[in-house]
């Protein structure tokens, strides 16, 4: 590739042709401020609508200022990123954006974590000239079970649109209307509930302002903890422990499992359990289901649906219910670990401690926003009482801990309570892309072959590639496994299945980049994939440190089957641990 020489703020630099001024400046450690621009380079996602003009720079010989995020370099270009003209223009742009932005920063959900606020600070904005005359564009507030859209705060950066369309291929959000009225919205400006939205939350993860935020349930948690008539049970998902520390200034990839347990106990939860327990249970059910389908397939039964698709990820479930309703018999019927946990907590465990399910509140801590929707699904409740009462995100948990005057850095480690707190290493890796299928492989291999695995690490299933495939030798029987993270990648595998061309026996899908560790409810990673990698590493480290690394060896799981469920796929297991799927296409756009 040919190289181009240019000068930025008096410094010479040489970059490949086609490079933007913004990236060339980066090479010189010149940080041109950006607002709408987003570069998730390791995920191949770039949002550069050139819309906000905050990144404008002066190019000698050019009449107007150039948006550096979307202007390519040219030979001998002379660029000034900090001339008075540029600084004044940048401030004017910022003042104009702010003139049409609510001034409720004190009570905004994004306060302290807002790119727009940071930019106002950086540019030293002290007043917004003419604001008394400025008109505000206002929109209807849209509250869904997972996500709140407060579009008065939208600055039309269109990052959410890029995530929703280019990366996830969900297509729920698009820029609509024009000029002052322009906003990002679902078709016909319907609410998210009546759009193809999967609640994956990746739009929330990239929104620079408070326009897209999660539904906050921390108030409900505090209310439940203060209600003396309630027994409050909490479960924590595997990915939470690998990221929560970041909210307390720890290095990405710091595992805080023990400190998190201490914090939860100090917050007043009666029982601190682990969703990982239910992940082991998921493997028992899903693994058995896979082997059952495989056996029938090998015996020549043509009615059997292969590949089997994992069903742990609620964003993914929403995605196929809307986009592939005709394939709704293909995914495993196993409920997600969150829901299996809730069902067991409010039956088996409630019986054990002699508490009526109505007096038990089950709260989940999830890296995910779709989980908030999932636990509200009608099929996951008994007589109107949900198995999981509500779900809060990793970020919300961090808020709760800080509000209670605790610093995770200073807490001692503690262990989860028994019996629903015990888990294998296989369950921990559910948090990373490829983890569920690796956990399933560890168990399915041993159940199928009757042999003990020499090595439990299936490194060929790990990694950050959007689509991966591997063949695992089940003692002479080759099992083809497909893995996708990100719904756009999942769509590619699903289209193969739909066309009858899939070579896989089993496919794992996670909606978010990197799996749950990159979930929409996690601390914001600002597109830095090294953070995702560090979290993944932490997850595998925890797996390595476990004595038990296969789900079917978890003694509490065996006891649960022995005392309560019978065996995997038993009638009781079906009733409590399995589900069915719906054709969501019919529900959309119907108000």
């Amino acid at each position, binding site marked *: 590739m040919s190289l181009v020489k240019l000068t930025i703020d008096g410094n010479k630099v040489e970059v490949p042709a086609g490079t933007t001024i913004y990236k060339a400046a980066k090479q010189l450690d010149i940080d041109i401020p950006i607002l709408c621009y987003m570069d998730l380079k390791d995920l191949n996602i770039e949002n550069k609508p050139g819309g906000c003009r905050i990144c404008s720079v002066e190019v000698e010989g050019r009449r107007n200022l150039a948006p550096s995020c979307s202007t390519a370099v040219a030979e001998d270009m002379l660029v000034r990123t900090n001339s008075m003209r540029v600084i004044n223009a940048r401030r004017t742009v910022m003042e104009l954006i702010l003139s049409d932005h609510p001034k409720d920063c004190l009570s905004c959900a994004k306060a302290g974590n807002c790119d727009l606020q940071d930019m106002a600070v950086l540019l030293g904005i002290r007043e917004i000239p003419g604001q008394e005359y400025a008109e505000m564009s206002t929109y209807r507030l849209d509250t869904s079970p997972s996500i709140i859209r407060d579009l008065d705060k939208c600055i039309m950066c269109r990052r959410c649109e890029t995530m929703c*369309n280019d990366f996830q291929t*969900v*297509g*729920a*959000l*698009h*820029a*609509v*209307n*024009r000029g002052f009225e322009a906003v990002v*919205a*679902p*078709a*016909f*400006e*319907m609410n998210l509930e009546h*759009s*193809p939205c999967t609640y994956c939350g990746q739009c929330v993860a990239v929104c620079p302002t408070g326009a897209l935020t999660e539904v906050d349930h921390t108030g409900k948690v505090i209310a439940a903890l203060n209600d003396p008539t309630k027994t409050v049970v909490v479960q924590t998902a595997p990915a939470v422990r690998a990221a929560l520390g970041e909210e307390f200034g720890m290095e990405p990839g710091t595992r805080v499992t023990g400190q998190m347990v201490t914090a939860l106990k100090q917050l007043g939860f009666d029982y601190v359990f682990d969703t990982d327990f239910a992940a082991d249970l998921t493997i028992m059910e899903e693994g058995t289901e896979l082997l059952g389908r495989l056996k029938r397939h090998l015996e020549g039964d043509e009615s059997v649906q292969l590949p089997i698709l994992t069903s742990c990820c609620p964003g993914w479930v929403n995605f196929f219910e809307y986009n592939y309703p005709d394939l709704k018999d293909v995914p495993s019927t196993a409920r997600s670990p969150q829901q299996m946990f809730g069902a067991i907590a409010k039956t088996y465990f409630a019986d054990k401690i002699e508490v009526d399910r109505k007096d038990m509140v089950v709260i989940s801590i999830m890296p995910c926003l779709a989980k908030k929707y999932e636990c509200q699904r009608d099929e996951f409740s008994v007589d109107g009482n949900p198995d999981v009462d509500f779900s809060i995100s990793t970020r919300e948990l961090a808020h709760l801990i800080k509000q209670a005057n605790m610093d995770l850095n200073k807490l001692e480690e503690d262990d989860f309570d028994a019996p629903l707190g015990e888990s294998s290493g296989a369950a921990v890796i559910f948090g990373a892309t490829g983890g569920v299928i690796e956990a399933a492989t560890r168990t399915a291999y041993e159940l199928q072959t009757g042999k003990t695995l020499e090595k439990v690490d299936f490194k060929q299933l790990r990694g950050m590639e959007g689509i991966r495939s591997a063949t695992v030798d089940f003692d002479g029987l080759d099992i083809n496994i497909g893995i996708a993270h990100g719904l756009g990648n999942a769509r590619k595998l699903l289209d193969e299945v739909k066309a009858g061309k899939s070579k896989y026996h089993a496919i794992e899908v996670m909606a978010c980049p990197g799996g749950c560790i990159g979930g929409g409810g996690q601390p914001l990673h600002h597109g830095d994939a090294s953070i995702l990698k560090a979290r993944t590493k932490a997850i595998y480290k925890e797996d390595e440190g476990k004595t038990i690394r296969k789900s079917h060896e978890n003694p509490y799981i065996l006891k649960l089957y022995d005392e309560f469920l019978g065996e995997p796929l038993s009638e009781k297991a079906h009733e409590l641990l399995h589900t069915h799927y719906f054709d969501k296409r019919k529900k959309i*756009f119907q108000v």
Partner: protein
Amino acid sequence: MSSVKIELRQDQVDKIHSICDSFGNQEGELINVLHKCQSTFGYLPAEVQEVISEKMEMPAAKVYGVVTFYSFFTMIPKGKHPISICTGTACYVRGAETVLNEFKKQLEIEVGETCEDGIFSLSCLRCVGACGLAPVVQVGDKTYGRVAPDDVKGIIEAYTG
């Protein structure tokens, strides 16, 4: 968005499909497809956009985004007699705005809206090339010149009387 709920007949769905097919269901042809559909149906209700979105395999939000971006496209059916008031420079300086306000008052609708009985709709346009007749009003294919606010009542009555 339009609050009008309509049910498309099968032949109408087939018509939309054939328009999409005639442009090869190409994403880049969306604007042409919308043009053709609007000229067929008179407007682009949500239901038509949904059929286009499904047929052309693109998100309905995107189709809607394009429809709402271009002022040419409308989601509201035009009246039986669409009234257009020229607000080009010549008509404007000769009082088009007062004429427009009189139409709004008489018909009790805003620009871009249609009367409840569906007889009239109101829109503005820019210069019909008859500046000598400013201000100009068009009702359907008929053009009225040198319109004064006092003439408005008579023009309306010519179609309702």
